[in-house]
């Protein structure tokens, strides 16, 4: 078990391109940290620097408080699961799992190899496959063998490099749950690289969002979702992603109003205060902040406001439906949005707003409809810097603190279960 500390880590390639730029991150003992970002953001490079497969250009890597920059991979006592599993094709499943133990045999000698392999195989339900070669296994089984090789080591930390990206969707969901349970029951520090935000949100105690080698925000999934620091994080986390609307703030007779291309939305004055002195802002509204105005509870109604818009089309999914509102942004905003899309590795952001409406709503596209929007949760971004002007840092920190407490509780519960078993 170990803590991992990254201090101002920089990775520059020979051409001077910084793949990872000044990343600092503290990973506590037993914590599950996800590195997430679009392809090319440096998340894999960062992981490979931790494990020692890439040199660190500058900065310091500490494991358990000891500087490890120069240590060879074999001396760091970390276990890694590779994207393509990297199983040894000439060895059986048993020998694949036993491989690290056989190498370490001279070093420690404690505990028999067979016992450890059998225990790991049992945990991963591989017992009946131990004599097979990796080539004859299914994707999920190969994945488990790779995990087994990591578990058997009793390594200080597990590092995962997009371990589920080669599996089909169903198996991915299943393996995701298995990894989460395994991590909790072993209580081992884990760093997990992915570009899949579902994995990031469901697995991580904390999620580190990277963009072009620069760390954007490290927080619990809830904080990332509810209190993103900037446009990038807000747009990257969440599916369907957050809508960004250009808006100007005007003081009308009915209070402060956001004039957006889809209509005027009255907002509370205190929300608007942060945008003082800016003639144009970007409003971030998550799809589920919208609702068919006729279906909103009386009690909830005052938290938001109602505006009139016309849906261009509607997708009914059974448990909810997506309504799309198209709008015509001006040139400056259009460029801003397409830059943002490029950053997020997404297709061009269409100038449209996605709204998630409840399934029983009978609104129809092509006719003006009354939509309610929860204005207490919308965010206002500075279009120049991308900074979130309405971020409540304290509320965010509280969410992350709660996640940390949750983790402590789960780890304690796992330890207790172990103690009972023993």
């Amino acid at each position, binding site marked *: 078990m170990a803590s991992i500390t990254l201090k101002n880590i920089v990775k520059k390639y020979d051409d001077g391109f910084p793949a990872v730029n000044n990343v600092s991150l503290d990973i506590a003992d037993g914590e599950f940290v996800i590195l997430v970002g679009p392809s090319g953001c440096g998340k894999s490079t960062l992981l490979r620097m931790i*494990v*020692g*497969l890439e040199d660190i250009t500058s900065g310091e890597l500490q494991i358990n408080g000891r500087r490890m920059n120069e240590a*060879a*991979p*074999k001396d760091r006592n*970390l*276990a*890694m699961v*590779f*994207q*393509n*599993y*990297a*199983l*040894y*094709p*000439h060895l059986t499943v048993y020998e694949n799992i036993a*491989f*690290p133990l056989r*190498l*370490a045999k001279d*070093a420690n000698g404690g505990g028999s190899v067979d016992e450890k392999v059998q225990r790991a195989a049992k945990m991963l339900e591989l017992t009946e496959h131990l004599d097979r*070669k*990796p*080539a*004859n*296994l299914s*994707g999920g089984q*190969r994945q488990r063998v790779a995990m087994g*090789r990591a578990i058997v*080591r009793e390594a200080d930390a597990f590092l995962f490099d997009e371990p589920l990206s*080669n599996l089909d969707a169903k198996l991915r969901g299943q393996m995701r749950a298995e990894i989460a349970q395994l991590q909790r029951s072993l209580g081992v520090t884990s760093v997990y690289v992915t570009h899949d935000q579902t994995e990031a949100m469901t697995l991580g105690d904390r999620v580190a969002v990277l963009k072009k080698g620069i760390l954007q925000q490290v927080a619990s999934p809830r904080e990332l979702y509810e209190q993103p620091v900037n446009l990038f994080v807000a747009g990257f986390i969440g599916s369907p992603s957050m809508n960004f609307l250009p808006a100007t703030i005007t003081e009308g007779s009915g209070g402060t109003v956001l004039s957006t291309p889809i209509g005027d939305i009255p907002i509370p004055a205190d929300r608007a205060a942060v945008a003082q002195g800016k003639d144009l802002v970007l409003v971030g509204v998550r799809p589920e902040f919208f609702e068919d105005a006729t279906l909103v509870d009386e009690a909830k109604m005052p938290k938001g406001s109602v505006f009139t818009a016309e849906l261009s089309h509607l997708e009914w999914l059974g448990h909810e439906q997506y309504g799309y509102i198209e709008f015509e942004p001006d040139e400056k905003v259009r460029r801003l949005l397409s830059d943002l899309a490029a950053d997020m590795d997404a297709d061009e952001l269409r100038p449209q707003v996605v709204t998630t409406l409840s399934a029983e709503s009978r609104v129809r596209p092509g006719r003006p409809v009354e939509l309610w929007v929860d204005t207490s949760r919308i965010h206002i971004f500075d279009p120049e810097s991308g900074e979130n002007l309405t971020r409540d840092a304290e509320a965010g920190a509280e969410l992350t603190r709660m996640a940390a407490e949750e983790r402590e509780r789960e780890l304690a519960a796992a330890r207790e279960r172990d103690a009972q078993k023993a």
Partner: protein
Amino acid sequence: MSTETLTPEEAEGQRRARRAKRNTSIGWWVITIVVAVWCLFPVASILATSFKTPGELSNGKFLPDNPSTSNYEEILVGDSQELFLSALWNSIGISIIATLIAVVLATLCAYAIARLDFPGKKIVLTVSLMVSMFPVISLVTPLFNLWRSIGLYDTWPGLIIPYLSLTLPIAIWTLAAFFQQIPWELEQAAQVDGATPLQAFRKVIVPLAAPGVFTTAIIAFFIAWNDFVYGISLTSTEAARPVPAALAFFTGASQFESPTGAISAAAIIVTIPVVLLVMLFQKQIVAGLTSGAVKG
């Protein structure tokens, strides 16, 4: 069961498809047989000749009338025994040593080429290719003089060294291609699992590369085994003369008898190890051991 539900047109179409399939497979068989006859006829002819008695050699028949093993007796226990057996011993020894050295050197070299990024990598590859393209005959005369003056003429090393110039380039090229197919991750995984670079090479890369190394070794062995020009030019006695060169020194029982029968018998004997090698290691050569290492 499906034919019941087919309309006559569909049934006709199916028949036509089946006929077309049969026609292509007949075509393949014809090609295969032509190629096999083309390649194996000379071997069969030599085999038949090796069982002929000197009197039958020019009787114009393919098969011997009275098959006799006299030619084999002649080269294995008879007059030519000394000439042939020592040449066979030379050939085996020299080819195996040249192969071993070539494979060991080429394995290390190819591994470096496949894995490391060092200046001059291209040059190493290009030079080795150029060496293998160089006409052997143009090297023989200077080598002959050089070997005589430094005492390598008519010795085993005197043949092993030039053979390396033939076997090394091809070995480096095949092995480099083979190493490049082995996923990098396997080695990295081994290092993370606690192996030193040398352990990773020995326990992961070498076993995976074994089929490639076998293939290369066999190719290198054939090159050395089949050489004639160096063999005849750089040797003068039984001390180092290999079989292909020795065949040229066979004589008949008298000067009026041609040694064709004995030469055929010797040719058959030297072909046997080659055939055996291919049959023994066919699996290794063909097997793609790396399948399943990565997603596939």
